[in-house]
């Protein structure tokens, strides 16, 4: 016989904990074993609630003179009876319940992307990303050198960094093996390599922006926030293969770690700025670009805006003199 409907027991966030189908009226709910649905809630009476259609055919929930009563939709109002539509929530004792008819509307079916994701993190992808990172490190070593360089230097310079990346992926693979019983080393290597490529791209981009628009502290802000985003994505990606956590939990964990790291960096920066130093702190990045493409101010504007410097120094001096 097909069930007439379902009573679902929900947690505080509205997620279904238990689901009970029923095939006949009345449906009794309480702590007593004579009920069709037995709740293990000390605030629920042995015979607490009965559900049955009334004379007009409406499905009604009726309080059986319980001590703590029937409450509407999880709200506070205590009611003797409550008409139930499919999806109606109600509370008895401290238990939140929901009635669903058998034709209750459902959310669309989610597409399973796991196959696509696993293609992205296949060993071939890992090798491709690894080679790309190696090439990027070699190029960086070449461009950063101002002396005549040999091929062997270009290859050997990035080796320590490559070792660190491999070690990092290895540690995550070990964690994966312990927690989810699979190494997933290529996947972790792909994630780490992608994060390095993203970070390097961000650095190059922010250097150019800082050069073109020195008035905006691009380097500082991207170092702080851009790196924070990349770190969050990195942790999120690793946790996807190294833990059974849900997406939401991974996201929260990644954000928490990233915010903690960004926060510590920001505090460090602030402390360094407050600390007295005789070093001049300025960004003097220069790039090989035709002068015509460089936004510039006039000489007058440069010295006019330097008045702000004077104001800032006056404030600093005032603060230093006021300090005990």
């Amino acid at each position: 016989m097909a069930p007439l409907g379902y009573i679902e027991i929900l947690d505080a966030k509205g997620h279904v904990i238990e689901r009970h189908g029923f095939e006949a009226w009345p449906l009794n709910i309480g702590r007593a074993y004579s009920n069709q649905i037995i709740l293990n809630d000390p605030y629920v009476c042995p015979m607490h609630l009965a559900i049955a259609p009334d004379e007009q055919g409406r499905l009604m929930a009726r309080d059986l003179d319980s001590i703590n009563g029937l409450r509407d939709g999880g709200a506070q109002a205590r009611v003797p009876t409550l008409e139930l539509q499919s999806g109606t929530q109600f509370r008895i004792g401290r238990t939140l319940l929901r009635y669903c008819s058998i034709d209750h509307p459902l959310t669309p079916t989610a597409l399973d992307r796991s196959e696509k994701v696993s293609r992205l993190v296949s060993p071939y992808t890992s090798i491709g990303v690894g080679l790309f990172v190696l090439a990027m490190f070699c190029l960086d070593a070449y461009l950063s050198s101002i002396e005549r360089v040999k091929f062997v230097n270009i290859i050997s310079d990035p080796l320590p960094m490559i070792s660190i990346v491999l070690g990092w992926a290895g540690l995550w693979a070990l964690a994966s093996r312990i927690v989810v019983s699979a190494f997933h080393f290529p996947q972790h290597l792909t994630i780490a390599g992608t994060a390095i490529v993203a970070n390097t791209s961000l650095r190059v981009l922010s250097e150019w922006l800082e050069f073109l628009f020195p008035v905006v502290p691009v380097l500082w802000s991207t170092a702080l926030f851009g790196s924070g985003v990349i770190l969050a994505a990195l942790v999120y990606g690793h946790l996807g293969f190294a833990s059974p956590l849900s997406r939401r939990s991974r996201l929260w964990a990644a954000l928490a770690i990233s915010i903690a790291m960004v926060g510590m960096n920001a505090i460090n920066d602030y402390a360094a700025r407050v600390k007295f130093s005789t070093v001049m702190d300025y960004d003097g990045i220069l790039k090989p670009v035709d002068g015509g493409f460089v936004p510039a101010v006039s000489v007058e504007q440069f010295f006019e805006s330097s008045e702000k410097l004077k104001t800032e120094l006056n404030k600093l001096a005032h603060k230093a003199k006021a300090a005990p």
Partner: protein
Amino acid sequence: MKSNYYIAALTLFLTLAPARNSLPAQPARATTPEIFKQFSEHVVKVEVVETGSAAKASLGTGFFADGRGRIVTNYHVISKLIHSPERYRIEITDVAGQRDVATVLGVDVVYDLAVLRSERRPKGFLTLDSKTVEQGTRLYSLGHPRDLGLTIVEGTHNGLLKHTLYPKIHFTGSLNPGMSGGPTLIQAGRVVGINVATEGNQISFLVPAERAVALLEKTASAANPNPASFLAEVGEQILANQTRYLAGMFDVSTPRVALGPYDVPTKPTEFFQCWADAVRRKELAYASVSHGCTSDDYIFVSSEQSSGIVNFFHQLLSTDELNPLRFFMLYSSQFQAANAAVFGNEEEVTPFRCQTRNVNSDTGKLKTVLCARQYLKLPGLYDAVFKAATLGSRNAGLVSTLSLSGISFDNAQTVSRRYLENIKWHR
């Protein structure tokens, strides 16, 4: 020439006639031991004593300049007291070992002089002689080198230095730390200069006596000035002096020197010394040509602060081998290098604050940086560093740095601007 000398000597004799009575009778040609014996009792050791520990914090020499107990010494000898009057006191000790406390009556920070007063009435005093002395004249300097006791040093007058912020006598003789503020006499016993500095190897410098005369006149009616008031006066004197030495610096008449395609300023005034060098080595993939100028002189403000120092340094970098990206790694690192030596502490100065912009000049675009910090005890005075790097070329660039110490912010802006306008190039 000889007759002029006699006329001048006669004039001087008449001018100094009132003071003559205070001087012992002079032998026709006194020997060094006689000079020491005659004048040593007018010279005192000057110590700035830290009141908490009663130990000396700085040491110098001074001499009685009148019968009222006024003593001439160097500003730098007593500068600690000027900066922290609550922490120090001045003690003087004569050749017989008698100690007394002295107070400051006035200072001239630009000429590094100070006038003190002791309650003691001296037995005699030394007379200051503003008259020009012929080069080669034998001089006798008195002082307390390294606290070893009063010493006499023989030397020669070698005229006034030409490349200084203020006139200084070139004294060929060995002055040593502790002799600062002591008198340097001619054989007749008159003071022609006050010991102020040395560069070793018998190259020493004296403040001309006329500046001490001027300060003595200025402080003639000074009663008991508040020691805390001198710091503000020091600041005012430095600011007023800037008008003199910065006027015209880096104006249109400033000579320029060519560094590759760049024309850059050089030796703006006589008191600058300029040097140049080039680095072209086989193992380097680039070449560097540098040209720098430094002001010969500075004004002592405190042990950690100076004013009047103007340095600038140009560096041309070029390459035929490095590609533009690699060359600009080098170029950026040179531009970001702090090649302006700075020191200071939290009690004296604020940290630096900088402004960076791309600037469009008459001949092209440059990346420019102006960094400055403020003096805490001398309001209105700043240290400033201005840097510029030319843009547009892919295999050559010029980094130029100007450092200014102890100047007003307005002057830092004005001089930096003139400096920037003097950097020109052709493509």
